């Protein structure tokens, strides 16, 4: 067995980084604290390198550094780096910057732990670290009523989700005598009482909350609309990557493989997926705020990911979900960074406030459109290929494996694609097509923001053309 410390090197680096940032906050004089952002970026970069070299294995029965966490780690760290770069540009003269960086790193740390969790305790630990950091990030602009409200809503819903989850976990422990996934799986492979199934579903509430799938999505629109866009960029992507990774591991390890996912669990997943897709699409078209529309779209995208997981087992559905997450992450961060610029300049991301954006900032608005079209699934962008992959798995499981509810779910995905296209077009219309009186020349964008947008745009186009992506990811999972 490999040395646990070596296995957990990336997590260790980020954990030490949080402390280092907080210490730097004390040592640096007021007005010069923005250098801390650089430290945060370097810490994540170091963790990224460590993740590339730190092997696979299990840490007792608590954490499992398997192919899933190996896949999730770079995603989490890269998304964090992107958001840190943007945040540094945004908060240059903000003495609270070090605390913000520390929270972002905590979010990443919680996500890394969650993604690797193979035990209910570590799962809970990781989710709570993520949540606590997230609460503060959502309510970051304490003076701003909407931001404070967002933070409050996030806390209340998060607390309820945690409670339900702990309730389920305690039942699992009472019924099976185990907290680690493998132990639970061993008990369940002999017998699958309904009570355990119910407890498992309760225990997944915390994950569903992080993914923001129906019916645990109610906080998302308000939090997205109220919280600062940069925080939303992190909150909408990093926890999703972690939650998906741990959900896959949980499904594969606890649910007996001959039933995986068993009829009832598969049904639950595809029902949640269909509900998320439909709710997201039909509520998004009534929204009048760009961030709210992105929030509803995030619910729909989470539903799509769940749909891919309903087609488990096998590496192909995981590859489809991973590819989807990658495409979603870059487009979502890109779109929210664009919206964050507009929000800071125009005071809000309401559709009416975006009028004339194209004339004022043509490049930024074009980038926003690119990300929105990718989220809408317009080829040849990443979002299209990702959706293609999920559809392929769902239709394959539906036709070739005989789970016909997945075929229906795939058609629901297609229908919701057409409906939610209207919602994205609302943003495009507001920013591009709506004329406005002449506006002052805008200040130059921070170089970091430009760099992040270029990276996201390149990834959005590049991933869309990378048809071999699914096969490559599936091969990296094959070793498991």
């Amino acid at each position, binding site marked *: 067995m490999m040395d646990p410390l070596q296995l957990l090197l990336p997590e260790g680096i980020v954990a030490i980084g949080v402390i280092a940032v907080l210490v730097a906050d004390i040592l640096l004089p007021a007005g010069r604290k923005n250098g801390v952002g650089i430290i945060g970026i370097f810490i994540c970069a170091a963790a990224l390198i460590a993740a590339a070299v730190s092997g696979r294995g299990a840490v007792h029965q608590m954490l499992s550094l398997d192919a899933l966490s190996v896949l999730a780690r770079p995603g989490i760290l890269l998304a964090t780096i992107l958001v840190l770069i943007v945040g540094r540009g945004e908060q240059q003269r903000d003495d609270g910057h070090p605390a913000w960086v520390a929270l972002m790193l905590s979010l990443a740390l919680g996500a890394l732990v969650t993604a690797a969790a193979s035990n209910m305790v570590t799962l809970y630990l990781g989710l709570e670290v993520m949540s606590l950091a997230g609460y503060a990030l959502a309510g970051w602009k304490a003076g701003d009523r909407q931001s404070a409200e967002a933070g409050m809503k996030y806390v209340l819903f998060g607390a309820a989700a945690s409670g339900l989850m702990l309730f389920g976990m305690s039942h699992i422990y009472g019924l099976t005598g185990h907290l680690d996934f493998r132990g639970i799986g061993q008990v369940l492979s002999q017998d699958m009482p309904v009570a355990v199934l119910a407890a498992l579903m309760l225990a997944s509430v915390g994950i569903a909350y992080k993914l923001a799938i129906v019916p645990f999505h109610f906080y998302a629109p308000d939090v997205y609309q109220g919280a600062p866009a940069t925080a939303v960029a992190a909150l909408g992507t990093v926890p999703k990557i972690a939650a998906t990774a741990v959900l896959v591991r949980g499904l594969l390890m606890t649910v007996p493989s001959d039933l995986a996912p068993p009829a009832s669990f598969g049904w639950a997943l595809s029902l949640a997926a269909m509900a998320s897709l439909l709710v997201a699409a039909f509520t998004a078209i009534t929204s009048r705020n760009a961030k709210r529309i992105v929030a509803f779209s995030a619910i729909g995208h989470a539903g799509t990911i769940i749909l891919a997981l309903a087609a488990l087992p096998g590496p192909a559905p995981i590859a489809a979900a991973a590819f989807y997450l990658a495409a979603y992450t870059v487009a979502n961060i890109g779109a929210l960074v664009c919206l964050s610029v507009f929000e800071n300049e125009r005071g809000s991301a309401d559709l009416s406030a975006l009028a004339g954006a194209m004339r004022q900032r043509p490049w930024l608005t074009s980038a926003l459109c690119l990300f929105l*079209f990718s989220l809408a699934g*317009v*080829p*040849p962008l990443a979002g*299209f290929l990702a959706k*293609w992959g999920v*559809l*392929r798995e769902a*239709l*394959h499981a539906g*036709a*070739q494996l005989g789970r*016909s509810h997945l*075929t*229906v779910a*795939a*058609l629901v995905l*297609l*229908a919701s*694609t*057409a409906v939610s*296209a*209207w919602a994205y*077009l609302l943003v*495009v*219309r507001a920013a*591009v*097509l*709506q004329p406005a009186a002449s506006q002052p020349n805008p200040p130059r964008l921070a170089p970091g923001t430009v760099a992040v947008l270029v990276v996201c745009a390149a990834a959005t186009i590049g991933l869309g053309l990378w*048809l*071999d992506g*699914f*096969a490559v990811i599936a091969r990296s999972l094959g070793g498991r």
Partner: protein
Amino acid sequence: MVIGPLTWSVLAPLAFGALCLAKDRSARWFALLGSLVPLAVGLAALGDFARHPGSDFRLLETFPWSVALGASWTVGVDGISAAMLALSGLVVAIATISGWNQQRSPRAYHALTMLLLAAMNGVFVTLDLLVFYVCWEVMLVPMLLLIGLWGGDQRRYAAMKFFVYTLAGSVLMLAMLIAMWNALPDGQRTFDLRVLTTQWKLWESTAFLGIPLAAFGFLAVLLAALVKVPAVPLHTWLPHAHVQAPTAISVILAGILLKLGVYALYRLAWPLFPAQALHWGWLIGLIGVIGILWGAWVALGQRDLKRLVAYSSVSHMGFCLLGLASLSVAGATGGMVQAVTHGLSSSLLFLLVGVIYDRAHHRNVDGFGGLAAPMPRFAWILLIACLAGAGLPGLAGFPGEVMALFGSFTAGGYFPWFAVIATLSVILSAAYLLWMLKRVAYGPLLHPEHAAFPDLDARELAMTVPLVALIVLIGVWPGPLVDALRPSCEALLTHVRGAMP
């Protein structure tokens, strides 16, 4: 690796489109050059097919893309795609001249036109189903922005309606494409249309949602195609989009985008699902006939000139459906000839409507009269366009229509009846077009201020005269075009008949 002419016909518009972004003044020149490349390639290929008729794919090129998915950049043309390629180059070149003096951000305008052209050419030349779908969808974005940014008063609504309507029409095609890919045995999965065509029995025997995959796929392509054509009752986006779109975009919309629907039926629905085409042919024919009559009838009552021409498109495109659905060589060839010639005549009509809109700033058919006096050249060209639209022998509208009707008349089943009913529309279309002609161009000059209208200038002649010349040329000498298109239609019908039980 050498890049061949067909790939260039997609790459050149993209490259020139990027150059368009450089400078406002030079953008239009780059756009013109970008559209001349596919025009040249298409004409050369069409000439080759006219001289050496055949149903094979020529100018084939393949670049591997993803071996795992079986997707590749494979291009090739038969007579029909060569004609479509030439048409798209021509129509976009003419649309560029029509938008020559575009004042509002000409860089973005011309660059988006080029993106649109590249996507349309991609659909015409590709032999890969995935690339076909990608290009099919890519077209929506430039079209959305072109209508939404440079259109009329209600442009934003019209553009979004166009986008969502056509997107909704084609999403089922995505499910079809994936289900077909899944149904193929492991290791032989591909998107190559030539391979997929040979597998038509597999689509019939694979179940999808309780029906054969072939039936689902046929429905999916049909829906996507009929929205684009547009066939009644899926046509409601068209008048809106046309009325709001700027003239040049109306020209592209009527001249090429509508043809894509027919092309999708010809390239996907018929070859991939021949048994379904045999089974449902009568329904497509019926939809065609309904469109022919409904479009003509509604056009008769239109006051807005653009709406009138838009509904006449609905009517004329019905002949393409009728001809293809009749499953006779004459009918199918006639339908495709009609697709080409309607591209010429409807483009011309939209250009002429644009010409008087530029002068009078309205399009109300009752607000004109006697324009022949101040604008004799305009009146002559409008006369030719109307007569071509009405299907007068000796002009381009005639051969396609008559072949489609003839093919339908000789086909079995309900088709003779369809042909008889569709013939009625010849009267209707003569009525609405000539009535429009009379009200706009002839009679006494109703509005004295119109006497000062200048006649067509050099730019307007440059965009209309080539179309007039082609309309007359194809009208009096349709032989080469028909020769180039017929073998492909024959091969298709042989393939479809092979699926008879």
